[in-house]
């Protein structure tokens, strides 16, 4: 199975630890979102996601590339989230929690406030959706097939009847337009 992350992961395994930051940056949003489905609180979701990334890093030597790295990381994140739920349930058994405090906890996680020093993904999503809808149809199609439907380049070639090279260049152009739209939201870095 072809994995886009393989070259970076090989570098990490051979000792270039700093490359792991690329992996974190690539998947952080999706993993935090996954963890939030279990934790129902954003600070906790980030904490669990952090643990998942650390576990994946520590077990990287055991990863056999039999599946995609993201699928493996996804499974680790689910396990970490389930452990979090179990530990939280144990704490709840020990403590007497009033109904009000429970509501406060839930409210804290799902409130729309963006903490200081965090990216507001809602605003970014609105921007990306409008830019994506304004893309030429051919660019929109390659983005849809690759980034939404997770098709390989060969599969995309069959669907679009275009050579792989053309698909790659269209994809590069489309991604550049989309990422440029987000640049102003990360300018303070």
């Amino acid at each position, binding site marked *: 199975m072809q994995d886009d992350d393989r070259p970076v992961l090989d570098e990490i395994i051979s000792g270039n*630890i*700093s490359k*792991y*930051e*690329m992996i*974190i*940056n*690539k*998947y*952080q*949003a*999706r993993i*935090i*979102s*996954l963890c*939030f489905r279990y934790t129902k609180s*954003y600070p906790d*979701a*980030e904490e669990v*996601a*952090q643990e998942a*990334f*650390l576990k994946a*890093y520590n077990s990287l030597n055991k990863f056999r590339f039999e599946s995609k790295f993201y699928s493996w990381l996804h499974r680790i994140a689910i396990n970490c989230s389930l452990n979090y739920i179990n530990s939280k349930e144990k704490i709840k058994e020990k403590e007497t929690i009033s109904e009000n405090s429970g509501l406060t906890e839930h409210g804290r996680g799902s409130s*729309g406030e*963006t*903490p200081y*020093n*965090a*990216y*507001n*993904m*809602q605003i*970014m*999503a609105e921007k*990306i*959706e409008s830019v*994506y809808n304004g893309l030429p149809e051919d660019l929109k199609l390659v*983005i*849809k097939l690759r*980034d*939404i439907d997770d098709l390989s380049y060969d599969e995309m070639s069959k669907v679009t009847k275009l050579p792989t090279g053309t698909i790659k260049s269209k994809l590069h152009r489309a*991604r550049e337009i*989309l*990422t440029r739209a*987000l*640049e102003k939201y*990360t300018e303070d*870095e």
Partner: protein
Amino acid sequence: MNDIKNIKLTGFVKAILKKEYPLYVSKDFSSKIMKQINRPVQEYNFFNYGLRIASAMTFAVITLFVMDSVLTDKIQYSKSSTINQEILSPTRNVANQMEKCEDAKDSIQSSDSLKCK
């Protein structure tokens, strides 16, 4: 745009298009993890273990010395009479009880032994 930032933005774009994004992501999320990864691991080698054992032994010896000097009476015993001698340290009057005394553990104690005591 540098590599890391480009990858981060591409990740955000993909998460948004897949509708798998959280409400917010901390700006220092990745750096926090990298800090933990780069944290030096304490090495437990032979030198560290030796140092720990040596410090424990030193502490034990000093403690025993202090306890010995504080808790033990410095009583000096002498075979000769000390009546006319100048006494410099604490003394205790003792008598030689070896002559007629019997073993105190004996269950049947004679009248002599009681006297002796």
